[in-house]
């Protein structure tokens, strides 16, 4: 079953990257407010809004 020796580590690596991305998003506050951002674009004009927790 040599293909497992390649696919499993590859999958784990990919998954690891995804988990890291999600954790980074949490740390940056992307999950702090679930309601506001969904409707925000309706009111925003051309300028980019700041992130909810600032820099």
């Amino acid at each position, binding site marked *: *079953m040599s293909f*497992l020796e390649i696919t*499993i580590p590859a999958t784990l690596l990919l*998954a690891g990257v*995804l*988990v890291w991305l*999600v*954790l980074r998003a*949490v*740390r940056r*506050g992307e*999950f*702090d*407010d*679930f*309601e*506001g951002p*969904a*409707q*925000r674009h*309706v*009111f*925003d004009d051309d300028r980019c*809004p*700041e*992130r*909810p*927790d*600032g820099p």
Partner: protein
Amino acid sequence: MTTAALQDVPLAETGLQLDGLRCTGCVHRVEQALRALPGVASASVSYATHRAWVQYERKRIDAPALVACVQSLGYAAAPYDPETVDRPARAHARQALMRLLVSSFLAANVMLVSLALYFGTGSIDETTRRALRWLAIALSVPSVTWCAVPFWRGAWAGLRRRKLTLDVPVVLGFGTSFVVSIAGTLAETTHVFADSASMIVFLILLGRTLEGSARARAASAVERFVRLAPETAQRRTAHGLETVPAASLGVGDLVVVAPGQAIPADGRIARGATEVDESLVSGESQPVVRSVTESVMGGTRNVLAEIEVIVTARVGAGTLARIAALLERAQAERPHVQRLVDRISGVFAPAVLLAAGATAVAWVLAGAPAIEVALIAASVLIVACPCALGLATPVAIVAAIGRAAGFGVLFKSGAAVERCARVEVALLDKTGTLTEGRLSVAEIVPSDGMDVASVLAAAAAVEGASTHPIAAAIREAAERAGIVVAEVTPRHVVPGQGVVAGSAQSDALQLLVGSRALLAEHGISVEPELSESARKAADRGESLAFIARKGAGGKRALGLIGLADLPRADAAKAVRRLTDLGIEVALVSGDHHAAVAEAAARAGIGEYRAEVSPAAKVKEVGARRIAGTNAPRTVLVAGDGVNDAAALAAADVGVAFARGADVAIHAADIIVHAPRLGALADTVEIARATLGRIRENLALALLYNAVAVPLAAMGFLHPLSAAIAMGLSSLAVTANSLRLLGWRSSSSDLGTERA
């Protein structure tokens, strides 16, 4: 806004607690307005927490100007320190979310590997099988360690207090699964439960995160009320007035209190005379007259005219502080009621351990090899692990808290829902709870030849735009009657007596609204019929305002307006509903006997006590708890004032109305912001429905155990069937709990009012 240009300037930052945001459009308006201010580098508003976060240049703008900007848009705002308030809570929430996400990822992957092992029995060779097992175990490692930190902590804290909380069987369950998986892999058996370990951690984390976020939402709504309270004072110094934090006032400081503002600390009036609304502190519903050299209490509200007050006690040592101390003591004395799920796990954990031990003994007696015995005993522990038990309470509580918020009731904690379901006695405060908490016109008695509308119109014209409670009540009645109010100037206010409007020149027409003493001073007599009506109204506890005219056409009393703090429109119905729920209802108030008796009669409450001090209220709670029965009864206290705070804390369930004092809102377990007393009955009903649901959930979870544990003990249990059964019982419990989202009150007037 050019951030680059501001980079060299040191920026200050502040948080603003906002209120009145109705939609994300409001969020946008506030953000835009703040960003447009000179000196503001960035501003962002969170709709979820109702908080703004602003970076600004200290030299060009200050926090009060930011607040003023938001207020000019019609929203309430108050600054707070984001460092102490926001960051710790947010960091905690984020970490919980990270643990949940990581554990969900691990659980899914371990399950995937395990499924391959379960189903690929014939087609996978032994080397690969072993590799996959070790993979599953390796993936569970972070799950049972980092993700499970809250359970390890909880179990340890519980054990140190010699209590078997739910964390203990949880840790036992996933811990043994993990150890057994390693032992099973080494011994080459089918007993590999790595998937159970990570699944248990994930499901129970999910339950807790849900409960935590529901609680955090309720708590942030509560904080919104509290943080908006003014905590500043206007201090008079040699250079003029300055705004300082109330806590920094010292004895001897001179503060200016404008009409409508709260008096920041206990003191003596140095200049001016006014009326003070002490209802939040003393429960007295009528404003009292205070003039020079008389003392005033911190936390009471100045309603009439500007006064200057010499502070006689620091904020930390005054009347409010004494009540706070009473409150703390009451909180400490409140009996600790264990949550249902903890009570069950207290029996459950030893029972499971016993079952596992008995299983081991039986198999040893039957002559099984040692490793086999250990694995079978461990599978008993694992299948018994209370996944469904862990979800049973949180999901039901989340659904209930969410549903209750829909009709204007905020539960501060899940434990409050459970306690509220057991309420047997309800003690209601009068002012602001049973009643609206403000004066309204109870009756209008015109003298001969006058009619109700013209008496009201005259009174409203004299009172003008005053913030005095009597003036507000008269104005409201006039508005409701559709009367266009004329303007009369000049107005002269006589504290404690009333208002005289119109020029003081000898022949000019003057209108008066006020006490009998005011009329007497102006030489106006009151007709006997009107006197008789006045006497009757006073007996009912109403306060009276006479309306009179004086001028070229002679002096005459035009009529009389009786004012009272009337019970809420739905008070009688709500009291009946509470009684129907089997709850003993009593009215306990600090107000005068006549007013309390009248309110009790109007609301249909048979039992009442008047002129009760805050300390006596606490005693009353204790007395009712043990009265009549051998088991202590659960007592609910509903109130809104500072004088209720200690009783709210002492009660098993404290309910505060949202317009009440901060300290009451802090002390309570449940905040009601629907202006109906019926919300109290709804609260008890939904709490009972929730407890019912929790009981069903626990029964379901235990049923699963009753089936699975004997199978495991006999050595029949395949890990796959254990995993499937565990998943099914968790799903059943969740689905059963979510039914609460569609809960309906027994009363039909619910549903029209959604918060």
